[in-house]
């Protein structure tokens, strides 16, 4: 193999990188918007918590588990009709976002639930004793107290989403994964493959160290 990267169309790589970042940005945003409330509800309805509700928790928990246990690549295909309904197409950057959110939101919800569980029950009790409403407890106790755990959760989810975006190339999702599959895999252009992998790797590194730094900054323990 030569190291001239003759097959690499740098403009296309740049475009692919932008597509990946766009998919990553929007899917992370919607994953947090859906996963955070879902995680809070899972936590609140679980045993011994403020809104304990066995039936609701069991159903919600089951749905989350189902979505999490379907391999992402299959979930993506299964969701094609749903995706078309939501964004009008199952292709390109736009078509990739709904399956990414469906795949990552349940995962993030579990991470949220776990970090809320880390909060000392006594602190919630103290807020109750001061006359806090359930909404005030969520807003003023649960979220601030689990802040560093939530940031760590968002970091892990975003890194997972990086690999999911690459997978979405298989069904015509666009981005770096799409390039890697079309050129690197189907046309045996290993140099394109290497470039995309290196870019993805750098992306993950940056995201992870950014997340770690934020966690450290907000950690008060």
């Amino acid at each position, binding site marked *: 193999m030569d190291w001239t990267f003759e097959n690499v169309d740098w403009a296309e790589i740049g475009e692919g990188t932008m597509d990946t970042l766009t998919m990553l940005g929007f899917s992370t945003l919607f994953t947090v918007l859906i996963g955070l409330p879902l995680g809070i509800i899972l936590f609140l309805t679980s045993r011994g918590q403020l809104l304990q509700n066995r039936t609701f928790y069991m159903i919600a928990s089951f749905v989350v588990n189902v979505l999490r246990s379907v391999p992402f690549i299959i979930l993506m295909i299964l969701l094609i009709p749903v995706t078309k309904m939501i964004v009008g197409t199952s292709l390109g950057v736009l078509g990739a976002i709904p399956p990414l959110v469906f795949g990552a939101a349940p995962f993030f919800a579990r991470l949220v639930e776990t970090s809320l569980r880390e909060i000392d029950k006594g602190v919630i009790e*103290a807020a109750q004793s001061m*006359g*806090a*409403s359930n909404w005030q407890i969520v807003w003023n106790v649960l979220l601030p*107290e689990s802040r560093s755990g939530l940031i760590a959760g968002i970091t892990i989810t975003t890194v997972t989403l990086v690999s999911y975006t690459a997978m979405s190339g298989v069904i015509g999702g666009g981005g770096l994964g799409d390039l890697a599959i079309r050129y690197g895999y189907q046309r045996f252009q290993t140099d394109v493959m290497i470039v995309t992998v290196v870019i993805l790797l750098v992306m993950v590194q940056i995201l992870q160290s950014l997340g770690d730094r934020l966690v450290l900054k907000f950690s*008060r*323990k």
Partner: protein
Amino acid sequence: MRTYTLRCSPFFVYEKGVFIFYQDYGREVDALIQLRHLHKSYQVQGKTIPALTGIDLSIEQGEIYGIIGHSGAGKSTLIRCINLLERPTSGEVIVDGVDLTKLDEGKLQEKRRAIGMIFQHFNLLSSSTVGENVAFPLKLAKRPKAEIDKKVNELLKLVGLEAHKDKYPSQLSGGQKQRVGIARALANDPKVLLCDEATSALDPQTTNSILALLLDINRKLGLTIVLITHEMHVIRSICDRVGVIDGGKIVESGNVLDVFLRPKHPTTQEFVEQVADSTELREAVEHEKASGNRTIARVTFLGEKTYQPILFQTMQETGTVFSILQGTISRMKDTPYGQLVIELEGDVAQNQKTIETLRQRGLEVEVI
């Protein structure tokens, strides 16, 4: 239990040539907190486990009421029933004239603001500074910011933490954390402060400084304090009245002095033994009794009599020879007391007379 709903008005009584002004602060009348026929049980794996089995308790405005019991006796459940962190299975919780068990969620939240609470493990917000922690209940009550700032500074001054306003709880010592807890509990100017084992996680010195602070607040603000503890020392240092809880029931209650100088229930006796060397005494008594026909008596001094030489004078007058087997001179909150176990030698009839004389002079004598 009798309960009066009317407050008695002040009245005058002519006595010994002067008019005396009376205001009846009767216990039942002025009770700020009343627990009536309180029952609480838990469902654990299909089984019903009783935690409280019929608690009737009345706590007056302005007093410090201590509840002492072993772990598992139900004291933690009991104090949590006062602000309904635990909802009793049956019974009434009347705080400041309102039965909390009958309120809806919104009204209850409002009422809880008049009941401050501090905890064994402080339960501070770890992500907020000391100042933000104290401001927290005011923020929940949606008070204006200027008012919050002013109040926070006042409270931090009261508990002696002005210099630590911007620190995080993890940077404080246990005693300081509890001071933050106290300041936070006082933010909404509550009528009652509930203390859930507030000193149990602290070392003895810090415990004393927190107890002194609680007593100070009780006096300065006239705040009613209800505390639960397993330490006799806490009760003795600051409480006015005490209830001993065992097996989900109050087995003995009354003024601290009465309950602990004359404990009746075995559990109470156990707690009293925590601060007295009763086992050694028992051995001494057994030994002395075995060695002959002697009179052993426990003499109790209360208040001013503690420091008067009544015992010595009486013995001298009656010519009785005696020796001291055990003795304590101490204080319950503000009242000095002494308790001596003495052995009288000589004729039994003569000893009986001496004991009578001691009783006439205001000492309590119990022949063991």
